């Protein structure tokens, strides 16, 4: 119970930071102060909070859980491509978004799109799709909170209560602190996790009798494939390089780009971002793989047995039994289980607080959704003009409460693993929306109709993925089920991990088709006026 108490104390500190940020704002009720911290973040807070915003439950719990089941491939799937693509996007796109935001006063990406393409309602469509895609990401945070607190307390804090506590804490400091509180909390949390992550590796390694011996033992076991990528398709591996395109298209990241005091603050962020990714993902992936040797941990042993049953008897099991076994074998809590077993109680509590830090990065998504709603809907449709700026901030705060409650209720019923939800819906959808941002900033020929075509395609594509996943049960690993074939060629296939399109993950056709649609429709439709283009393209 000691680790759970330490985590609860930590949650109290986090709420205090949010309240402190609220007091630092001296009761200011300006929109830019609440939603963008008055565009005043310094270089250190900008780096740590931007990175922390991207390090969610998915990064910590999802990565170690995925590595537990799939091996070292996890790092090459999500960390190393992001180490190149994400800072590159910040360098190319983030700096331009910052400059335009400062010049024209934009607070959300939809404001930029509306102005750049001279449109109103198409901007509303983009808002709706962006908001719908962000909600699953918020749910992940709540699920991660429930999983972590439940595991840390040895089940004394049930999943529903753990999720409720995390939701309540995040809601509180976002409600009071706005962007300033969120940025400070993220900075505190990221620092904490970077420090305690290193300690976690040492403690677990020592507890397991040294990593050298564990790796050698794993290499000599039937699970040696976890140390290679021999069971993973090279096309899937390639597909994952498209996923980090989503990062800059996530509204909370685009909005974060607007908070820097100076554009020069991007420099350190761009250079250090790959190093921060390395510091977080390498230990998580490695520990996830090594958990396969932690058979003395009863909970881990239970997962390994469920996985073995799935591998040998999956074909004879009913879909319901398969789903139950898959849930039992899921490794989202494996890192916490290792900590609980190998670290002394007080240290396990501190380390779990570090994990909780990453889990609660969902704050930025909640704030972003609130910002988007109040700016892109409330203010755009005259709410600000009629009721004033203070009412707009209050609307944003009310939205924070409503959204958190809805996300919590959904999290209670969500059966899929953290990793699957994040990749299949949010990441794939936002990667498909990335061409909008690129076209708006770099291609004067892009038009609102091209943007609408790409947005609708992404929305329908994500709905299609969700529908196929819902109606075609996941087959056992290695036994894909064709969903649609053309001239003898399997085009869409349901696999154990999701969907495959011509051997690629859905994110590849999503990005390619969305880009082509945007280009094709833009070429057929009239450009914005020369006056607007002149404001975006100097030469």
């Amino acid at each position, binding site marked *: 119970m000691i680790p759970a108490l330490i985590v609860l104390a930590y949650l109290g500190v986090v709420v205090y930071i949010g309240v402190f940020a609220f007091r630092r704002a001296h009761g200011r009720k300006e929109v830019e102060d609440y939603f963008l911290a008055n565009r005043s973040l310094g270089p250190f807070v900008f780096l740590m909070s931007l990175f922390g915003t991207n390090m969610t439950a998915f990064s910590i719990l999802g990565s170690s859980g995925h590595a537990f089941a799939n091996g070292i491939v996890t790092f090459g799937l999500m960390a190393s491509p992001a180490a190149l693509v994400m800072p590159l996007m910040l360098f190319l796109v983030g700096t331009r978004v910052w400059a335009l935001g400062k*010049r024209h006063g934009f607070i959300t990406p939809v404001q930029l799109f509306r102005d750049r393409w001279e449109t109103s309602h198409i901007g509303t469509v983009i808002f709706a799709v962006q908001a719908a895609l962000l909600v699953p990401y918020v749910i992940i945070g709540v699920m991660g909170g429930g999983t972590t607190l439940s595991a840390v307390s040895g089940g004394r804090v049930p999943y529903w209560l753990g999720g409720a506590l995390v939701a309540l804490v995040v809601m509180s400091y976002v409600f009071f602190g706005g962007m300033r509180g969120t940025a400070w909390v993220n900075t505190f949390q990221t620092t904490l996790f970077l420090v305690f992550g290193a300690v976690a590796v040492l403690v677990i390694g020592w507890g397991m009798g040294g990593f050298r011996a564990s790796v050698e033992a794993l*290499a000599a076991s039937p699970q040696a494939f976890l140390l290679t990528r021999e069971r993973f398709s090279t096309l899937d591996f390639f597909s994952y390089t498209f996923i980090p395109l989503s990062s800059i298209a996530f509204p909370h990241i685009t909005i974060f780009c607007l908070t820097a005091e*100076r554009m020069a603050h991007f420099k350190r962020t761009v250079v250090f971002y790959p190093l921060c990714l390395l510091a977080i993902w*390498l230990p998580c*992936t490695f520990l996830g793989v090594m958990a396969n040797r932690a058979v003395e941990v009863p909970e881990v042993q239970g997962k390994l047995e469920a996985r073995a049953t799935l591998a040998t008897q999956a074909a004879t099991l009913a879909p319901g039994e398969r789903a139950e076994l898959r849930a039992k074998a899921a490794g989202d809590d494996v890192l916490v289980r290792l900590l609980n077993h190998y670290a002394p109680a007080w240290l396990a509590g501190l380390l779990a607080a570090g994990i909780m830090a990453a889990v609660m990065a969902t704050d930025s998504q909640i704030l972003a959704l609130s910002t988007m709603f109040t700016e892109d809907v409330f203010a755009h449709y005259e709410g600000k003009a009629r009721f004033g700026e203070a009412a707009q901030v209050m609307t944003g705060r009310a939205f924070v409460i409503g959204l958190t409650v809805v996300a919590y209720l959904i999290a209670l019923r969500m059966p899929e693993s953290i990793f699957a939800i994040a990749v299949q819906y949010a990441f794939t959808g936002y990667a498909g929306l990335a061409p909008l941002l690129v076209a708006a900033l770099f291609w004067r020929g892009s038009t609102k109709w091209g943007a609408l075509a790409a947005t609708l395609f992404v929305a329908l594509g994500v709905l299609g993925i969700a529908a196929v996943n819902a109606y075609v049960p996941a087959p056992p690993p290695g036994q894909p089920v064709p969903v649609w074939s053309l001239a003898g060629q399997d085009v869409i296939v349901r696999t154990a991990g999701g969907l495959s399109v011509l051997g690629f993950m859905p994110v590849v056709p999503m990005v390619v088709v969305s880009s082509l649609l945007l280009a094709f429709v833009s070429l057929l439709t009239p450009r914005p006026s020369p006056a607007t283009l002149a404001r975006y393209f100097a030469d």
Partner: protein
Amino acid sequence: MKNTLLALATIALYLLHQDVWLWRSARPFVFGFLPVGLAFHALYCLLASLLMLLLVRHAWPARLEREAGPLDDPRRRP
């Protein structure tokens, strides 16, 4: 010329991600415990950071900050 070289370096690093030559190898274990496939991608992150340093030093879009102007720019929307 400098920008072309930087663009080529970026493309080369992107392609380097698909390290099929290490696909089935677990050994050697770097530092005695890191499978070579994992160590390669850790090194990849270091190379990405180095590339970003070169981009920041040699291709920084400084004109954007100058064009952005002060916050009280009259063109700024409410």
